[in-house]
């Protein structure tokens, strides 16, 4: 049942994703991509459990590597997206 339940979540989330961002102006293609990319660093959450469970040495090593790479993805991804978006401005005079 577990498998079916997880697949259920998968399918619904994919449909939600398509509905959510079907219309994006070209200006935001890069920030959307790099912002989404930062979200894909969510795998960090999985790596945390492996690195800290204190089980097999191998699992700890792999988990730590996972944590390291995923943190680069998360921290770098969000910061670079924020940096990009801070540059996007409308014409002077009408803020926001």
């Amino acid at each position: 049942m577990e498998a079916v339940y997880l697949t259920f979540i998968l399918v619904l989330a994919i449909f939600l994703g398509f509905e959510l961002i079907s219309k994006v102006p070209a200006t935001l293609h890069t920030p959307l991509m790099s912002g989404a990319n930062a979200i894909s660093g969510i795998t960090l959450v999985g790596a945390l459990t492996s690195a800290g469970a204190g089980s097999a040495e191998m699992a700890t090593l792999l988990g730590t590597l996972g944590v390291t790479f995923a943190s680069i993805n998360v921290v770098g991804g969000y910061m670079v997206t924020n940096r990009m978006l801070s540059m996007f401005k409308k014409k002077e005079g009408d803020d926001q």
Partner: protein
Amino acid sequence: MSNALLINLTYVAAAVLFIFGLKMLSSPATARNGNLVSACGMLLAIVVTLLDHSIVDFRWIALGLVIGGVIGAMAARLVAMTAMPEMVAIFNGFGGIASLFVGWAALHSGDVSTFTVVTIFLSILIGGLTFTGSLIAFGKLSETIPGRPYIFTGQRTFNSLLLTAIVVVGVMFCMDPANTNLLYVLIALSFLFGIMAVIPIGGADMPVVISLLNSYSGLAACAAGFAINNNILIVAGSLVGATGIILTNIMCKAMNRSLANVLFSGFGAVKTALAKVEGEVKPITPDDAYYILEAAGSVVVVPGYGMAVAQAQHVVKELQELLEHNGAEVSYAIHPVAGRMPGHMNVLLAEADVPYDLLIEMEDINPRMEMMDVAIVIGANDVVNPAAREMEDSPIYGMPIINVDYAKTVFVLKRSMAAGFAGVDNPLFFGENTRMLFGDAKESIGALVREFSS
């Protein structure tokens, strides 16, 4: 309230924040806050995971978080805006390899069911190919390896064999997950697959590849989520997967090509343009160009990858201000696949402080093109090539273009007469109303700016 329940409820909240964050990222006014909302979701998910009772040792976690966080923060701060495409590519790759490690580590977490082994196989495969594919994309974008498509004889046969090998090893692995040799072979094959998938794709098709890899990194996280039974990985991963597919689709449409065609054709390398374009090229000096611009009432700038290479965005903005001061109306026409990643030109112009409402998408600018006094093409080629509209035997025939040739006068800023990325001749250069301004884009525009200022 039990600990596991608290964690899972918090994951629901994190998922909601991701969803709102992505929604807000699709409108310019709310985009920046959207990114922050999604970052809050991430922070929440991470912090609550650390409360998990099964985590007993925080030393390795702290080490990984600090190293990764510092590298990520430094990279994000220091990278030049022009290097953004390769930056996005490499971050993507790191997400992929992290999912591979999560899947691999799940193998060591005691007894695993067949279903879990299958998902571990998928997270290793997708994570691995995302990693090497992104590395190759990074190399091509930063030009540490040649950007042209790499094609050899028997490539298709080799790739089909590779795919078969992956399926065979995958099945064997799923039946015998304790066999580490099979695991290593599987990892090696998935790495090789990522390399083989990206090397035949040329620089101008990179927007498609980056969006696709973005999608894969989400799917890898998704597979890892199945492997460790974690809902938030599945939800966030599939949201990213969907975003990537949508962007990929937009890019493919903008080139009028199917995804399969982009991935497998090695565009430009195999096809030779049948039609030769003949005619006379009319060069112009910055002096003469200045006189035409001074009299112009409306000017449209069409940037391409050449503007990024020449780093000409700041001087373009200067020219825009001088033209506006002179009474002309200036706008920018942006082709969806101009540059090396989706929205590349928009980011560069934003860096130069160009307001985003001056940037006009292809469908909106084309009907107004005939009213434009001057169109300035800066380092763009294929996206303004009228052959795509008129010459049926042209390899790019059918691709939507910005119709600069309908403007009263067209300036083309170009280094030399070399063909564009697709290796296709461009009839625009021989047009009646086209004037070629040869030289480095930054210097040519700089010369125009000096003419205006003096």
